[in-house]
Structures are given as structure tokens and as C-alpha cells.
């Protein structure tokens, strides 16, 4: 189940980017995304798990570049989301490979898919909402709240980096 979902996610990410770039008039790049998908899948099955992080980085950079070039934001969002899910499922498949044959991996897979589904729906929903809903004026309190949230996030990042 995980492998199928991972393949679909990788294809979703790369094909979405390819379509977005084709619509933007740079069809030449599209082939590179399909090649990236192929390399990513081959790397996964050859147990080069480190490559999935590089693939996600490339996909996010490509999506950011697409946004910068004002290609279709929806395709870029779908690309980033597909990349994120592919990266997550690739790592989950790696973790599952450590399980013993008698372990209840089906239950673990089911629960993981539930969480990933929540992330996908929530992430995409919020992203689309932010694309289509434009707030013209932001209240001061909301701005302060956002700044505090950003500071909290940065603190968490710094703590994480120090631990690392």
C-alpha cells in the first residue's frame, strides 16, 4: 500500500510540475521532471534513501521558480504537495523495511495513511485558500499573532538545530 501511494505521490508531484511548466511555455524542462521521477523511484528501490531529500529539495525549488515565473500556482502547489508526500512515504517505506515479518505493519500503514491524508487535504486546502482569498487589510492583532507564531517557529528551529 505504501509503495503504491509513494509512486502515485511522486508521479503527482513531477507530472504537476511538468504540466505547469508546459503551460508556462517551457516544455523543455518537463522531461527533466519525468526523469527526476524515474531516478527517485529507482533510487528508492535500490535503497538510496538519501536521494529522496534531494528530490524534494529540487521539487520545492522548481515549484518556487515556477511561482517566481508566474506559472500556474495550482500546479506548482500540487507539485510541492506531491513531492512532500513522496518524500514522507519513501521514508516511511524505509522504516517499515526494518519490521519483522510478524509485525503488524498493516495497522501502522493504515494509521500513517490517515495522517498523511489529513496533511494533504489540510495543506492543499489552506494553500488554495491563501491563493484565492486575498486579505486587503490585516488587523494589528492578527499581525502581532502571526509575528509571535513565526518567532515560536524560529525558536523551535533553533532548538532543533542545537540538538542536532
Amino acid at each position, binding site marked *: 500500500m505504501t509503495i503504491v501511494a509513494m509512486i502515485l505521490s511522486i508521479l503527482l508531484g513531477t507530472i504537476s510540475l511538468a504540466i505547469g511548466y508546459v503551460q508556462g511555455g517551457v516544455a523543455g524542462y518537463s522531461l527533466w521532471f519525468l526523469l527526476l521521477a524515474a531516478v527517485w523511484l529507482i533510487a528508492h528501490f535500490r535503497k538510496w534513501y538519501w536521494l529522496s531529500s534531494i528530490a524534494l529539495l529540487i521539487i*520545492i525549488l522548481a515549484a*518556487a521558480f515556477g511561482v517566481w515565473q508566474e506559472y500556474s500556482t495550482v500546479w506548482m502547489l500540487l507539485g510541492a504537495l506531491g513531492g512532500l508526500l513522496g518524500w*514522507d512515504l519513501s521514508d516511511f517505506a524505509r522504516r517499515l523495511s526494518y519490521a519483522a515479518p510478524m509485525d503488524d505493519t498493516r495497522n501502522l500503514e493504515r494509521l500513517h495513511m490517515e*495522517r498523511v491524508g*489529513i496533511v494533504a487535504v489540510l495543506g492543499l486546502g*489552506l494553500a488554495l485558500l491563501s491563493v484565492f482569498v486575498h486579505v486587503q487589510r490585516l488587523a494589528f492583532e492578527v499581525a502581532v499573532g502571526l509575528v509571535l507564531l513565526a518567532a515560536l*517557529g524560529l525558536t523551535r528551529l533553533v532548538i532543533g538545530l542545537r540538538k542536532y
Partner: protein
Amino acid sequence: MSRSIFLSLLTYGLLLTGIATVKGEFIALALPLVTYLIVGYLQAPEKIDLEATRHLSLERTSPHSNVDVTVTVTNRGSSLEEILLLDILPVGLTVRSGFSRHQLRLATGQSYTFGYTVSGPRGGYVFESLELKVNDHLAVSSSRVRVEAKGRLFVLPPVTRVRNIAIRPRRTRVYAGTISARAGGAGTDFFGVREYQPGDPPSAINWRASARYVDKLFANEFQQERVADVGIVLDGRLRTNEFARGHSLFEYSVQAAASLSDALLNQSNRVGLLIYASYLAWTFPGYGKIQRERILHALANAKTGESQVFSDLEHLPTRLFPPESQIVLVSPLSEDDLMPLIQLRAQGYEVIVVSPNPVKFELSYLPANETIQLAGRVIHMERVLLLQKMGRAGIHVLDWDVAEPFDLFVKRRLGRSPVWLRAIGR
């Protein structure tokens, strides 16, 4: 780099780009990543409190025998979404069946039991702990914990039963045993004839000697049999035990030391063990089954080693052995071991050397070409000469070809005929 840091960096990169370029789409791009991080952090375990217990089907076993290990892990803290559990095996043990690594989910108060089978060569093995990697479903937050689950396994050397070993130390202890004490008294072996004294049993009267005198009776005297002090010295020096291509005689030496100590303890002697390797491992002398266990445990942990100080037998600490007691050295021997052993004899110790034959051992696995055969003959002659010199110094040397089972070899070379056979003068 951890997953959460990697994602955070990507997220902040997109957010900062969005702020710098005043483009909301960059921030929209970051939202799936932010959602992923938030969902992950929300599900991070609050409190990790795990307990583990371990049960071994056997605590002492023979080499390469299967032992079942059962481990139970109980979650006393908050629910743990994903745990990678790895039971850390002591070096040397191998898993024969089952798995020591598991991926699971543990709710609060839930237990998980798993088992596997291990086996290994001679040695003392200590199980310390389990290593657990706990993370949420998205593996945003993860932590490694070690949970103590102690267990001990002794893989003891094989003990071949050897009966009736004949040793004759100069000095014995006061307790009755099986070793001739060179003194008249109660026993089975004839010692001499003396004048009959009141209290002697009539069956002890030597009628033939008494018939020569009119007014005197003579009684037979038997040799007292007592227990003795025996010090077994196991030579663990690397240079005498290890050979080319990873072959070693040490396992045979350990087996010999185990069998000898078992036999000598069964004869009620007081036995101590000294392992002479990179350091001295001394098992204090004692009697009986507990001492047998102590010696077997010491032998289970015995390893070959090398040190400048103990490279030859010069530093054999004779003070550990009672004066004029029996010393049994188990060693393949080297040329320079002659003088230290002669010195032992000079100090009054009775010395037996059980020497696994290194020449025959090496020739058994080397190709049988002319050069090797010639070299083998030369080394064999050198060894024979060394053993002869030892024999002339009063050292009882037993040259053991390890291809022969140790019990048969000892029975042939050190065996003591049973009491009924000795009674009829055989």
C-alpha cells in the same frame, strides 16, 4: 540532518522569499510543509516511559546450542505511535531464528512480547538493554531511548568426562581422598608390614610374616589416600596458541583444562585455575560443585592475549600454589618454557604438562607438499627434544594430538586403574 530541521529550513526559505518578493504564492507553497510540521509536532509523544524484562530459556549452555530469548516491553507513558525496537545482542552471539528488531505501536499500558533464538561460541555474554527509536507517524519528532533489560548467558566449554586421574603430589591435605599420601594407614594400596597393635582388625594380620615368629604378630599397612591441592595453569599466550590462517589451539586447551578440573574436583581435590594470557586470571582454589562452576565460568571468559610481561612463563606466580602441590600446565609449549618449568620442579612442585601438539595440528590443515613435510619433521624433532628434556627434569609431559578425543587420551596416559584391579596387583 533530521527530517524536521530539513522541512523547517525549506519552509523558512519559502516564507522569507515570499516576504522579500512580496508574493503570497511563496507563502502558499510553504503551507503544506507547515501543516506537515504542525501535525507531526501535535502527535509527538509527551512522555516516554518504557519498561522491559528479559527471560532466557537457559543461563548456561554448551557452544553453538540454541537459547530462546523472550523480551517483553511495556509502555508506562503516553501512547507511542511508532517504535523501532532493537534488542542489542552481545558481540559473538548470532540470531538463529526469529527477529531481534521490530516495528510497532504501543498504546498506554500495552505490552509487546517477542522472542528469538540465539547461539554462539564459548564465552560469557551480557545482555544490557534495548534500543528504541520512538517517533510520531510522520517522524517529525523522534527520540532514541535505551531501556534496561539485563540478562546473562554463559556458553561453557565442553567437558568430557574423565575418570580416575592419577597424580602424586609430594604433599597432600588431611582429608581423605583418592591420592596416595606416602604414609601408612587406612587405604587400599599395600604400603608395608608392621607389628600388630591392639585395635588392628584381625583381617589386617599378615599370617605369612607372623608365622616366622613365635610371640609376635604382624599386620599389613595400607597407603593412606587423601586429597591434594591442584593448580591448573591454562596457557593463553597468543604466540603459543594462534597459528596461520586464523587457526587456534586455544579451544582445545580450554577443553582440556575444563575436563581436568572437572575430574580432579570429582576426586575431591582442592583445585584452583590460573589463566596465563595478557593478564593473570586467578580462580581461588576450592572444592566441589561450586568450584566447578567458578572454574567453568572463568574458562568461558578465557581469551588468548599478548603482553610483554607474560610473553614467557618466567612470571608464573608460584606463590599462588601451596608448596609441593600438583601443578597441571595446559600449554602447546614453546622453546623457552623449559627453564621456568624446571624451576617449578626445583621448588618441589609436581608438574604435569598437557601439551596439545601444535606441529600435528598445523600439518593437519597445511597442504601436504614436500617443503612443508620437511619443515614439519624439523619442528617435530625440536619438539621431541624439548619434551625429552622436560621428562629428564621430572616433568610428566603428555603430548596430545588434538585429533584424538581428550578423554581417551587421558585415560590412556593419566588413567588410574580401578580399586578392584589394584587390589589384585594389576
